[in-house]
Every structure is written in structure tokens, then in C-alpha cells.
């Protein structure tokens, strides 16, 4: 590490701001955990740091915890740096991930040295199998430090690293302070997991940061509060009411939990359902089926809120249609298994209003739904409400244009580009379409409409009409799809509305609706009606009306001139359309993309930025950008819906980040643990680990001091769970191998299949466990099933209280207990171990005879296939998808996996080809599954 001579780094840095330089020098000098406020350029600091090591050469630096795009960026940035500072030693950034690099190549790369981004699972296996000697590592950089918990792989890696290498550097980064503030002494325990002693906090209100960003000219910001339309407000209120009811329902059925936070206010947070899940997790398997559904519903409701503001009226209505179809009860069920919120009046308002934003009946709305054969009704007519932000956007653009014309801006380094930032790719597409078509006028729109705006201002009429046409077409198809998917259900649905009174409802008599009746009259009846069981159902508009509506919005002459809707971002075919654009009159629509936005700003150099949706991190990025370049002027337009969820969410996000930093600063002030954490704690990581990580097994006494530490062979796939890390923590030698049979081999005779409760349930359901037990029994004398409960979840199985009241369930049991009974009856030799947590499992696994790893690997392998076992890994997700296909059994599954590459290939195979592999009957089933057309 010659680069250690600091003060005069031999490399060129690209850190223009004071606080960034301070941070860099701090990092060069000591190991620490950096928590930087979002948007302040974390990755930039990281890449500069990495470059300083890269340029020095002779280093082996590992980057862990980064996600794919960050790795990509680091790679690009390092290449750029190397080119700029022209350092001969720099070798750039290389990736080590699953499929690309094999064992031999990895070994070579490790000895070569360099800067590597590496997947944690591979790194841990390489460290354990001594492919990589930890003492040769110059240093490790951990990104997303907030994800490193005591049992995570990253913590495991750092423990092994620190055990064998006390001199290498170790630096951790995070740009989200929130996770560091939950729990008891969270910062201290995080520091312990990271084997670090010094936290370094950089909130936005840090003096240096504030000075750097506010000292010089600030960016010009113009804020707009856009009012929502009445319909939007109604929908939002309706959804909020649904959320409120759902929450109170949850509270009612789950007493004894800490529920102070469970209110509508916090429900708007991004991760509210995650919070509830975490609180319910300790009792999740005992939570009633209904509560689980409500937790699910909360997620759906939150999505609806989001869609309301981002989607156009037609897309929103379409999304609601899909939700409704997905949550409608299976045909003929008497069970009230629909989501509770669907029974509310508010839900009714929601669906009704959403529909009326799109189209409405012209004359007598009440009669449209009530009496389809009535002659008095006219037809449906389009409403097509526009999002209020669109008009504002058009106005802003116009203003910019005027402004640029009348007061030509001072010449500076920025381009005349206008950058529009919005939430996601979907919104981008919507805005692009709007901007392209806002001046197109359908000539023969409704009379009164064209009378209103003589000025012919921008309007989304063209776009919305096109969307409505697509929607109606889609809806026709959708009806067919649901007809073939839920044939019977659909019949009942039509019976309930169209032919009311004609044919008796196919639905079994539902319990009388206890709720008060929907207010009679036009508004209630025009939209969705109620099904017999009291839940909401969409009234089917009759064919004739839809046809009429379609005719009305047929493309007019002017519309036909426009090119077809752009399905994809044309930038994707950039090679075909390659052309340099003039940067000065460009309008760019871009989604928020985390740290990538910095690149966008740097490259585009916009003079005007329109933030279509609020985003606190992006505001900071603009501040950073503005302060980094004195010679560029930026004007920012910032818009949000007043009184909306969007506004509240933005404000609370800002507040939460600030609070988190305040908490962290307080904790750092009073933190004694980290300062006294001396080398001894690291010297003896087993002890250290036991004492700090879990006090439940504290008094366990010293481990038996044998010359040879006990050894356990662990399947490499098992490294996703926390158990290998804990076994290692108990000074057991973990030998990672690719196992075909079992997850853990404790001795030549003992083989363990580990199942968490969730796995247990699913593998009972798809029959995997039965097969696993079968093969284990073939090869091992003492096969064991380890049922592992989660550390923070309660140590009991699901209750079966509901079954006791239902005599039929006794004769046809389907609960977990009965499946367990069947399993033990089928395999009397299979032993069951019950473990209340991974920590206990680690204890149970001690003191066994030594297994032979090589033998363990070979067991159960299909040696005829002639493949080297070490060369194979399996991907779980596509295999699970295969298992869901009818006709696939555990036996022919293996055949398919050998001969077919992936799901995509299988889906496109001919029936005969599939049949040749897995037999006629199964082949036919598989083919039919993929090819059955739902439109017929």
C-alpha cells in the first residue's frame, strides 16, 4: 500500500466540494462507517477512494454489498478516472458473480489482485474453502451497510476477514440513516456487525455540507402546488378510508401488539406493510387468514394511491379492473374470502368515481345498470379527465420558451436543455406521449368542449381518446380471458347484472347482507353494483353501449395523421437512429434513478429542471450539481399535488431522515461500547460473537477444547440462510460443498434437511419434502428433518382452533400437523429436530463424528450424466416455476432441466418435442399450459 502517503494523493480526484474532500481524507486515514445523507454523492466518494487504491496497484480490494447498477457505475467511473489521471498501474474494476467466473479463474484473479466487485455468496464460499486467503486482501469496502445484520453473509465475511487479517482496511458506506435507528442501541450493534469502531455522520445539516451547498449561489427554485380534481380527491379519501378500516380491523384481530404506529398517517410511508409484517412476524404463522389478507390489501391500497397520482384516468381504471378481477371469489365459494375493504361504501365510491373519470352514461345513469333492456337510455359518453399536472407542465414549458425569448439567459456553461424528472419509466412514457400529442386536436370533439377553449391550448384529448380505445379493446379481451379463466364466476357475474331477474343467480345463497344498503339513486347504481354476497362488482356495460362509445371515439381525420402509439422508448434502438442532437433545444424526460441522476445532470447540463414529482434526494443532487459548477445556472420548477398523499409522503420522508440523523448523533455521543471494543474482541470472535450477538445462549459455558474443531459439510445453496454463519461462530469448521442430498452433513450417517416453517409448508404442498426424504433415506442411515423456527418468531405451530369447530376438517385434514403425521408415518426412520432458532440449531449440531466432504458431494448424484458435479449449480426460481406447471413431476423435472435451457425455451417448444422428453400425456399437459389461448 504505497498509496498510504497521504496529503498528496498521486491521483486526480473529482471531488469538487469541500465536504467530499474532507470525507475522502478521513477515509484514507482510518476505517469507519460513513452514513451520508441521500443525494450527497456517496458513490462519487466511493469511486474516488477505489481509484486511489487502483492507481497505487498491487492491491486486492473487494467491494461487497453493491447492487448491479452500482457495480456498473463503479466500473465506468474507475475506467474514466484511470483515463484522466493516466495512471499506468490502474487495472479498473472487475466483477465476480455466479455464472461468469469458475473456480480456476477466480483463483487466478485473486492472485493477480485488483479491484473486484464480488457476490457475497461466492466470496464466503471462497474464503471458507481457502481459495482466497484473507490475509492477502488489502481491504474490503461494504456498500449498503444498513443491510448488514448480525446473521447476514456480509457480517460473516467480515468476521472471517478480521479473524485472519487485522491490518487490511475496512470501510462501510450507507446513504440511508433510517435502518440504523430501530431497535436497541442500533448504531452500536451495527458497528459491531461491521467490525468497525468509528461512525462518521454526514447529514444535510452538517456544517461543512451546508456551507458547501448554500455558500455560493443557490439554485433557483419555483414551487407549484397543483390542486387535485374533485374526482381525484374523492378517490384518495375513499382509499384512505379503506386503509383506515383495514388497519382498525387488523388491530381488532391482533391484540397485544404494539400498534401505536398503526395509523393512516404512517400508512402512507413507503414501507408500511413491511413494518406491519415485521411486527406480526413473531406470530405470523398464528395470525388468522383474514389478517394476512388485510396486510396484503394494505399493499394493494398503497399502490392504488400511487397510481391515482401517476397514471392517467384510463390506465387507473384499467388497473382497478384488474385488481377487482383478481380478488373476486372463486366460483361457487360460499366462504367470505374477499378482502374486507371491498365491502365498504368507500370501495364503491372508489370504483365508481374512477370509472366516471373515464366515461359516463349520458341520460339516465340509474337505469343503465338497473335495467339493461330499458329503452330510455341513450349511450355512454367519454369524460376523460386529465391529470392537472399535465396542463401545468405545458404552461411551464411555454413560460420557459417565452422567458428564453424575451430575456436571453447569460451565456454560461449549461445547455439550453429542459430536463423533466418524474417517478418512473411509466410516467416518463406518459409525459412523452402527452408532450408529443398535446397540440393535436380531434376535429369533431364534443361541441361544448371545443367551445370552452377557443385558444386551443394544449390538451390531452387525443392521447386520452386513444387510451380509451385501447382500454375498451382490452376490456373486451379481458372479459374473454376472465371467462376462460373463471368461467363459472363470469356467468354469475353477468347473471347478477345483465339479466337481472331473468335467470336465477348461480351463486349459492349468501348470508344476508348485514351492512346497510347502498344509498339508492343514480350515483350509486351507475357504477359498480353489489354482488349477492355484498361485495363490490362492476356492472357490465352492455355490448351496445360499449360499441356506441367506441364509435364515438373513432379516430378522426386529424388523429389518423399521427403515428401509432410508441410502445417502447425509442432510445433503445439508439444504434439504428444514431444522430447527435443539438443540446440547446432538447427536452429530456427522465425517471429518478438514485445515484444515476448525477450522471444525467452532468451529461445533460440542463438550464431548466422540472421536477414532476417531489424527491428530496434529487433536490440535493441539484444543490450538489449547482455548487460544483459555478458557471452553470439552473432553474428548478417543482410541482406536487396539494393536500395529496404525495405531498405528505415527501414531507415525512424529509422529516424522517432528519430525525434519524439526530438520533444517530445522540447515540454516537453516548456510545461507549464501540470505543472500548479493543483488539481482544476481534481476537476471539467466537466468544465475542456469542456474547454480543445473542444473549439467549450466553451462559452456555466454554466450548470443548478439542485439537480438531468439529466439521460440518454444508450445501452451498444453504449460505442464503444464517445457519452457516452461526456454525462458524461456534468454532465449527464449515465446509462448503455442492450437495445433491441434504443440506448439512454432520457425520457419515447423519444428513439433515433444514426447513424453515415457511419452506416446510410450501415443500409439503408441492411434494418436494417427500422426495427429499425418500432420497435421504436411500443414502443415509440417519436422515433428519430440521424444523427451524425463526429467531424472532414464536416457537409454536399454527393453531388449529378453527378446525375444532368444523367436524369435516377432522376427516379430511390439511393442516401442517396432519402433514407432519403423514410424513412420519411414511418414513418411520426419519427423525425430526425442532429448533427454536438458528442459534439453537448451531448448538444442536455440535459434537458429532466427522463427515467426509468428498463422499457427501458424490452421494445422490446422477453419475451417468457424466458431468463434473462441481460444475453444476441450480437456479431455484425457474425450477419452482416448472413445478407449478401441470404434468411436471419430480422425475420428469430432472429430465427437462437437463435437456431444456430455460422456461422461455420450454414455452416455445412443440408438443412432440416435449413429449419426447417426458412422455405423451405430460407433454400434452405442459404444451397446453403454455399455449392455451385465453382470448377464445
Amino acid at each position, binding site marked *: 500500500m504505497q498509496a498510504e502517503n497521504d496529503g498528496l494523493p498521486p491521483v486526480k480526484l473529482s471531488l469538487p466540494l469541500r465536504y467530499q474532500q474532507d470525507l475522502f481524507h478521513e477515509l484514507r486515514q482510518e476505517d469507519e462507517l460513513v452514513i451520508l445523507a441521500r443525494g450527497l454523492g456517496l458513490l462519487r466518494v466511493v469511486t474516488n477512494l477505489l481509484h486511489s487504491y487502483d492507481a497505487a496497484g498491487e492491491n486486492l480490494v473487494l467491494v461487497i454489498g453493491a447492487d448491479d447498477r452500482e457495480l456498473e457505475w463503479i466500473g465506468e467511473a474507475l475506467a474514466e478516472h484511470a483515463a484522466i489521471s493516466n495512471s499506468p498501474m490502474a487495472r479498473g474494476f472487475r466483477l465476480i458473480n455466479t455464472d461468469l467466473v469458475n473456480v480456476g479463474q477466480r483463483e487466478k484473479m485473486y492472485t493477480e489482485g485488483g479491484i473486484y466487485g464480488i457476490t457475497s455468496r461466492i466470496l464466503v464460499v471462497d474464503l471458507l474453502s481457502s481459495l482466497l486467503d484473507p490475509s492477502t486482501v488489502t481491504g474490503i469496502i461494504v456498500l449498503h451497510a444498513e443491510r448488514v445484520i448480525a446473521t447476514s453473509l456480509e457480517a460473516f465475511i467480515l468476521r472471517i476477514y478480521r479473524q485472519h487479517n487485522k491490518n487490511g482496511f475496512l470501510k462501510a458506506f450507507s446513504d440511508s440513516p433510517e435502518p440504523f435507528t430501530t431497535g436497541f442501541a442500533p448504531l452500536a450493534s451495527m458497528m459491531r456487525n461491521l467490525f468497525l469502531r468509528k461512525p462518521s455522520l454526514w447529514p444535510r445539516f452538517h456544517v461543512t455540507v451546508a456551507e458547501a451547498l448554500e455558500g455560493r449561489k443557490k439554485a433557483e427554485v419555483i414551487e407549484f402546488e397543483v390542486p387535485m380534481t374533485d374526482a381525484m380527491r374523492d378517490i384518495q379519501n375513499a382509499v384512505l378510508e379503506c386503509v383506515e378500516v383495514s388497519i382498525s380491523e387488523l388491530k381488532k384481530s391482533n391484540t397485544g401488539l404494539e400498534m401505536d404506529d398503526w395509523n393512516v398517517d404512517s400508512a402512507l410511508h413507503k414501507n408500511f406493510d413491511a413494518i406491519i409484517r415485521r411486527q406480526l412476524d413473531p406470530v405470523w404463522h398464528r395470525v388468522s387468514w383474514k389478517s394476512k389478507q388485510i396486510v396484503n390489501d394494505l399493499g394493494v391500497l398503497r399502490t392504488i394511491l400511487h397510481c391515482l397520482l401517476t397514471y392517467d384516468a384510463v390506465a387507473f381504471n384499467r388497473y382497478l379492473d384488474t385488481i377487482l378481477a383478481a380478488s373476486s371469489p372463486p366460483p361457487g365459494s360460499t366462504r367470505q374470502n374477499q378482502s374486507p375493504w371491498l365491502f365498504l361504501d368507500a370501495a364503491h365510491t372508489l370504483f365508481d368515481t374512477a370509472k366516471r373519470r373515464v366515461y359516463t352514461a349520458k341520460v339516465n345513469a340509474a337505469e343503465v345498470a338497473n335495467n339493461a333492456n330499458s329503452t330510455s337510455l341513450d349511450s355512454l359518453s367519454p369524460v376523460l379527465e386529465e391529470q392537472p399536472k399535465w396542463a401545468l407542465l405545458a404552461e411551464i414549458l411555454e413560460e420557459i420558451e417565452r422567458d428564453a425569448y424575451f430575456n436571453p439567459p447569460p451565456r454560461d456553461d449549461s445547455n439550453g436543455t429542459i430536463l423533466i424528472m418524474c417517478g418512473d419509466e411509466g410516467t416518463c412514457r406518459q409525459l412523452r406521449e402527452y408532450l408529443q400529442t398535446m397540440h393535436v386536436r380531434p376535429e369533431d370533439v364534443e361541441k361544448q368542449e371545443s367551445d370552452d377553449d377557443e385558444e386551443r391550448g394544449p390538451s390531452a384529448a387525443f392521447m386520452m381518446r386513444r387510451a380509451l380505445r385501447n382500454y375498451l379493446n382490452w376490456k373486451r379481451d379481458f372479459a374473454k380471458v376472465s371467462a376462460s379463466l373463471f368461467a363459472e364466476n363470469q356467468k354469475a357475474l353477468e347473471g347478477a347484472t345483465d339479466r337481472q331477474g331473468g335467470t336465477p343467480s348461480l351463486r349459492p345463497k349468501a348470508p344476508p347482507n348485514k351492512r346497510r344498503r347502498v344509498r339508492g339513486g343514480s350515483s350509486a347504481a351507475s357504477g359498480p353494483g353489489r354482488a349477492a354476497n355484498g361485495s363490490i362488482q362492476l356492472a357490465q356495460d352492455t355490448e351496445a353501449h360499449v360499441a356506441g362509445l367506441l364509435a364515438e371515439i373513432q379516430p378522426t381525420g386529424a388523429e389518423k395523421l399521427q403515428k401509432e402509439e410508441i410502445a417502447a422508448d425509442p432510445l433503445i434502438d439508439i444504434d439504428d437512429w444514431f444522430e447527435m442532437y443539438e443540446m440547446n433545444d432538447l427536452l429530456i424526460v427522465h425517471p429518478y434513478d438514485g445515484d444515476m441522476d448525477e450522471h444525467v445532470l452532468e451529461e445533460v447540463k440542463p438550464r431548466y429542471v422540472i421536477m414532476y414529482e417531489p424527491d428530496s434526494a434529487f433536490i440535493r443532487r441539484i444543490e450538489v450539481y449547482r455548487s460544483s459548477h459555478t458557471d452553470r445556472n439552473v432553474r428548478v420548477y417543482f410541482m406536487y399535488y396539494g393536500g395529496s398523499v404525495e405531498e405528505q409522503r415527501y414531507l415525512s420522508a424529509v422529516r424522517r431522515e432528519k430525525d434519524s440523523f439526530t438520533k444517530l448523533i445522540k447515540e454516537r455521543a453516548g456510545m461507549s461500547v464501540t470505543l472500548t471494543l479493543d483488539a481482544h474482541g476481534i481476537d476471539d470472535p467466537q466468544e465475542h460473537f456469542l456474547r454480543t450477538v445473542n444473549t439467549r445462549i450466553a451462559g452456555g459455558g466454554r466450548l470443548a477444547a478439542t485439537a480438531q474443531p468439529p466439521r460440518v459439510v454444508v450445501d452451498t445453496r444453504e449460505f442464503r440462510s444464517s445457519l452457516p454463519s452461526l456454525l462458524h461462530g461456534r468454532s465449527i469448521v464449515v465446509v462448503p460443498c455442492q450437495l445433491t442430498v441434504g443440506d448439512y452433513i454432520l457425520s457419515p450417517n447423519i444428513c439433515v434437511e433444514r426447513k424453515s416453517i415457511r419452506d416446510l409448508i410450501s415443500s409439503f404442498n408441492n411434494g418436494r419434502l417427500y422426495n427429499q426424504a425418500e432420497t435421504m433415506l436411500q443414502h443415509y442411515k440417519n436422515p433428519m428433518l430440521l424444523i427451524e423456527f425463526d429467531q424472532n418468531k414464536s416457537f409454536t405451530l399454527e393453531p388449529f382452533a378453527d378446525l375444532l369447530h368444523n367436524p369435516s376438517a377432522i376427516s379430511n385434514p390439511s393442516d401442517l400437523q396432519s402433514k407432519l403425521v403423514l410424513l412420519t408415518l411414511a418414513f418411520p426412520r426419519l427423525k425430526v429436530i425442532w429448533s427454536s432458532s438458528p442459534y439453537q440449531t448451531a448448538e444442536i449440531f455440535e459434537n458429532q463424528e466427522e463427515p467426509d466432504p468428498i463422499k457427501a458431494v458424490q452421494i445422490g448424484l446422477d453419475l451417468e450424466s457424466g458431468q463434473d458435479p462441481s460444475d453444476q449449480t441450480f*437456479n431455484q426460481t425457474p425450477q419452482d416455476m*416448472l413445478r407449478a406447471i401441470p404434468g411436471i413431476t419430480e422425475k420428469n423435472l430432472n429430465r427437462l432441466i437437463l435437456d431444456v435451457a430455460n422456461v422461455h425455451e420450454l414455452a416455445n417448444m412443440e408438443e412432440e418435442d416435449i413429449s419426447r422428453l417426458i412422455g405423451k400425456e405430460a407433454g400434452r399437459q405442459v404444451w397446453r399450459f403454455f399455449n392455451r389461448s385465453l382470448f377464445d
Partner: protein
Amino acid sequence: PQVIPGARSGPSSILVSPRQKGNPILNNVRSLPWEYSDIPADYVLGGTTCALFLSLKYHRLHPEYVYSRIRQLGHKYNLRILLTMVDITNHEESLKELSKTSLVNDLTLILCWSAAEAGRYLELFKSCEHTAPTSIRAAQATSYADKVVEFVTVPRSINKTDALGLVSSFGSVRAGVNARPEELSLMAGWGEAKVQRWTSAVRENFRVKR
């Protein structure tokens, strides 16, 4: 009480050792008949199945009890259940010990947390005596719609609504599998993350050669 002829015939009832007299779990065996009998185990639940009952509370006071019972049992019966009631909070040590004991003495450990659950286990072992394990062998046959939903929702974060959206937009599962990412992202509710997960799931190889 009415006497039903044939109901008390030997093999169809659970045999209970007299030493279990007064055990509250017997009150929870309701759906099947049981009778006292002189047997080495606590319960006989079928031709080759027996069970010993142990309460952890009792085990802590008399740790030797269970071993003497296991000794008495010898090597009789094919499936030997050690039905253990977890009625103490510090169960880790005892369970660790019992796990090892069960391995050495060929017992199958089954935990229960209440008398009702214990009773239910007894009933289940008896009533499932001759049941074929079909319900745990393979996935249960379900309707096409359920299968489709199950198939599509395998990748993380894709839910039922999304599954329905997929097949309704593309018309068949095959078309959904073949869909390009741009087409997918046009659907409501399909954000970038979901689109990415789905396309990588269908194009990811089953078996990776490294």
C-alpha cells in the same frame, strides 16, 4: 351414553396405558375411541406405531424418567413417537438433549404446545394409520387459473393481480413468457423491478455450468 356395537373393537381404538390416567390430553381425544390396556408404551396408535408422552415440566424435575421408559420399550414398534409437550419457557437445553436421545434410541420427536394439540396428534396418528401419503407427495390438482397464477407468481414480488394482468394482456402463458420487457412495462402495476424479475426468471437457465 349409548353403546354402539363394534365401536370398541380393538384395533380401531387408541390403546392407552393405565399410567396415563388423569392426563388432560385424554380429554382432547374426542373423535376416536380409546381404551386402557396393558402396554409398555403410553399410547398405541396402530399396528406398528406407539407413542411416549413427556411433559418438559416433568422432565426437568425427573430427567431419568424418560430414559427408563425408553428402556422398558426396548426395540418394539416401527414408528416410536416421543410426544413432547413444551410447557416451559426455557426449553432449549431439554430439547437439545431430547433431540440427541431420540436419534440414539430411534424415537421420532414431535412437539406440541397444548393438551388440545397433543390430543389432536394422537387422533391424527391413529386416523391416518392407513392413509396413503398422497396429499404430501405432489402438488394438489387445481384449476387452470390457479396453476397459471401459481406459475407466474413464483418470482418474488409478482402478485396475483400482476399474474392476471399478464395473461390478459398477452392472451396466453406462452406469449407472456415471450413478451419483451418494453411490452411488459406497459402493463399497469408492472414496474421496472417486476419486469426485470420476470424476464430474468423465464430466461434464466435451470442449470448453470460454471
